């Protein structure tokens, strides 16, 4: 019973929050609603016994991601109302509703497939984090490492795009201009 | 060297073309003529070495290319292809020799040499894919020739030419892939070799579809009604040399392919489609002849006349007997010579007046008697005057088809009437009457260079008209084997009946000869 109440409550809350996120014209509201939605989602994780995931959700999303977004928003000065020219709303809502309705139509049916053996079963007595750790560092070691590379890529990309001198474009400069820039750089370095 | 003479014939011009980039612009024409002459001499040597008594393939070459997919570099000539190869070599030579000062003569000659490679390749390939390679490749130099040196609508014309034929041949390619697949199914081995395919007897229902697929490719190339509309544009816009090669050789690819592929591969389908194709041919003959009559541009007249004559060739091919097919092969050569010459002749006047409208001329026989004479000879050849080259082919084609259908032959025979109508009226408009235009009064007659190109054509026209045997003999031998093959392969009763059993005929023929 508790589970049901919690499910419906958080379901309502997440849906509401995300609805606000996609519809509000105030960027700040959107950001706040998104963060709230993320937190509510972590609640599902806890309900479902995925404690580790819940923790990660809160840390990564509400911590890191939201902080970054907030930073970005300050950068863009989005305290003003966001003006968006909307085309045919009917198409947007229609398509999304259609997608939802159709998927739901199929998802409401129970899965009748049998032999649903768990390949990486949860172990009695071990905490969720422990279990996750075990699987993560054996089976999913490689994806984990690749994810690390991915984060490195993201980092380098972020640095290159936001950090380096992208405002001066060698691509657009003629050879002479580029040479001047080089000379300046050399002076700075030397 | 004789073992590889076909490869040499194919790739010598290409190599020379590549080397041609190094030649100085002023010396280019001399270079082109010499290369083309060597090539022509080689082709004559091929003829000389050709054994007239063998009806099958000679000078075969076999080199694995993609053996796992059954694609091999196989070459060979028989009596059917031999003369078209020689004709291709000959016309390239004539064409280069008669080139009047064009811009970018270097590019032109290199392109022509490449074109020559593709032409000879098509006629000597014995592998479906190799054939297709050269077939397609021949479009490119022609595209360039029409598009770069043509008239005001040249780009439209060249692109139309390219795309139309390209689209058709792609359908043919699918047909070839099917053929190879059927061969694979039958034998477990992939093969695109035409001689392998000859051994395959297909059920009639398959034959019909495959025939149709090949037909699209060939018919556009020929070009058969109603796929012919690219041709007037191509000819109308092309420079003289382009029209000459196009009419003399490139169109023959389609008709040649009918004999090389459609007939022996699909004998039952050939019989099945004989009447429809004959009707199309007759439409080609009469309809285009009438359209030709309505033209105002003399080159268009010749262009439409080409379509009309191709109708006779197709008709002869689908006579499905030795007389008709031999006739159609001979007519291919004949039409090559005659229409090539006519286009050259149109080029002569175009060079002088930069117009091809017949209304601009009139009374040219007064100022350019030699020109008028040569034009007259070629015109008479074109309308099928006996003792000219065209007559032999036309006579045999019609004679052959007469065995299949009397009424249709009668209708097709209207060719000789309508042909005379448009040709004579065009000739009259251009050459007869008083000189009305002031510009025409002082036109120089044909010069030496033009004569060098035209005289051999006149001589061939008459020589082969009087004594076609050196050409007709080898053609006949090979055609007999094709017809025999068709007869043996035919499955339906009707096909067996329609396609004569040559081995029986041969005896009676020798008997006939003895009787004389």
């Amino acid at each position, binding site marked *: 019973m508790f589970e049901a109440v919690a499910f419906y409550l958080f379901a309502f809350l997440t849906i509401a929050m995300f609805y606000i996120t996609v*519809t509000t014209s105030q960027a700040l509201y959107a950001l706040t609603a998104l963060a709230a939605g993320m937190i509510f989602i972590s609640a599902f994780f806890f309900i479902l016994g995925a404690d580790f995931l819940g923790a990660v959700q809160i840390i990564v999303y509400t911590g890191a991601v939201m902080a970054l977004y907030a930073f970005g928003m300050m950068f863009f000065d989005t305290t003003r109302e966001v003006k968006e020219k909307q085309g045919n709303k009917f198409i947007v809502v229609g398509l999304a*509703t259609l997608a939802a309705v159709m998927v739901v139509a199929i998802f409401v049916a129970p899965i009748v497939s049998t032999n649903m053996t768990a390949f990486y079963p949860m172990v009695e007595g071990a905490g969720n984090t422990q279990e996750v750790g075990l699987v993560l560092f054996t089976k999913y070691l490689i994806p984990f490492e690749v994810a690390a590379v991915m984060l490195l890529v*993201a980092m380098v990309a972020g640095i290159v795009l936001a950090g380096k001198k992208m405002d001066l474009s060698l691509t657009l400069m003629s050879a002479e201009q580029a040479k001047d820039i080089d000379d300046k750089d050399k002076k700075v370095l030397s | 060297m004789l073992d590889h003479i076909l490869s040499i014939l194919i790739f010598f011009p290409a190599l020379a073309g590549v080397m041609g980039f190094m030649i100085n612009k002023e010396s280019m024409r001399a270079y082109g003529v010499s290369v083309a002459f060597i090539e022509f001499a080689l082709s004559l040597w091929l003829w000389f070495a050709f054994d007239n008594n063998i009806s099958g393939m000679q000078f075969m070459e076999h080199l694995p290319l993609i053996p796992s997919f059954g694609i091999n570099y196989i070459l060979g000539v028989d009596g059917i292809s031999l003369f078209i190869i020689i004709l291709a070599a000959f016309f390239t030579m004539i064409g280069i020799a008669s080139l009047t000062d064009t811009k970018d003569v270097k590019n032109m000659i290199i392109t022509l040499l490449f074109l020559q490679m593709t032409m000879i390749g098509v006629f000597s390939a014995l592998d479906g894919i190799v054939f297709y390679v050269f077939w397609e490749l021949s479009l490119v130099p022609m595209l360039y020739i029409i598009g770069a040196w043509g008239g005001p609508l040249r780009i439209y014309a060249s692109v139309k030419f390219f795309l139309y034929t390209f689209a058709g041949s792609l359908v043919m390619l699918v047909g070839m892939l099917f053929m190879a697949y059927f061969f694979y199914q039958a034998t477990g081995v992939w093969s695109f070799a035409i001689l392998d395919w000859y051994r395959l007897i297909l059920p009639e229902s398959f034959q019909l579809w495959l025939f149709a697929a090949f037909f699209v490719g060939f018919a556009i190339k020929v070009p058969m009604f109603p796929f012919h509309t690219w041709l007037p544009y191509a000819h109308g816009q092309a420079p003289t040399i382009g029209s000459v090669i196009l009419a003399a050789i490139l169109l023959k690819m389609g008709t040649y392919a009918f004999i090389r592929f459609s007939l022996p591969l699909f004998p039952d389908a050939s019989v099945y489609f004989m009447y429809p194709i004959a009707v199309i041919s007759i439409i080609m003959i009469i309809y285009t002849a009438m359209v030709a009559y309505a033209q105002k541009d003399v080159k268009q007249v010749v262009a439409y006349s080409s379509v009309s004559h191709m109708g006779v060739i197709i008709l002869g091919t689908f006579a499905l007997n030795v007389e008709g097919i031999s006739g159609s092969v001979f007519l291919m050569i004949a039409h090559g010579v005659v229409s090539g010459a006519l286009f050259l002749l149109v080029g002569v006047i175009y060079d002088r007046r930069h117009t091809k409208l017949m209304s601009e001329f009139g009374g040219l026989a007064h100022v350019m008697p030699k020109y008028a004479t040569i034009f007259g000879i070629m015109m008479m050849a074109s309308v099928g005057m006996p003792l000219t080259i065209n007559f032999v082919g036309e006579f045999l084609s019609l004679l052959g088809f007469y065995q299949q259908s009397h009424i249709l032959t009668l209708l097709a025979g209207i060719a000789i009437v309508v042909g005379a109508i448009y040709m004579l009226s065009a000739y009259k408009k251009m050459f007869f009457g008083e000189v009305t235009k002031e510009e025409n009064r002082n036109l120089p007659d044909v010069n030496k260079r033009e004569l060098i190109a035209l005289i051999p054509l006149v001589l061939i026209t008459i020589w082969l008209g009087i004594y076609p045997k050196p050409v007709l003999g080898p053609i006949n031998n090979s055609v007999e084997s094709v017809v025999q093959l068709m007869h043996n392969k035919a499955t339906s009763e009707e096909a067996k009946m329609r396609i004569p059993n040559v081995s029986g005929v041969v005896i009676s023929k020798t008997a006939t000869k003895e009787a004389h």
Partner: protein
Amino acid sequence: MEIGLNHYLVLSTILFAIGLVGIMRRKNLLLLFFATEILLNAVNIAFAAISHYYGDLTGQMFAFFVIAIAASELAVGLGLLIVWYKRHGNIDLDTMTSMRG
């Protein structure tokens, strides 16, 4: 009332659809990125639920990696956003139409 897997799947679908609405509707690049986060989060709920109901950890793994991916995407996305903003002073999609046809 028992809450089954289907409930979670339906919830996930609804959230996903909301994300789609955002994706299609938002013309502000930043807010558009928000919508992409919603998409991924919606899927995560389903993964966790399946994992729970099947007693299998793979789902949680997937969700974990999805979070990682979402984070990396964010970094690159913001980088692009900043570069664009520096050049143009806005982040409106409708101004981003120099290439078309």
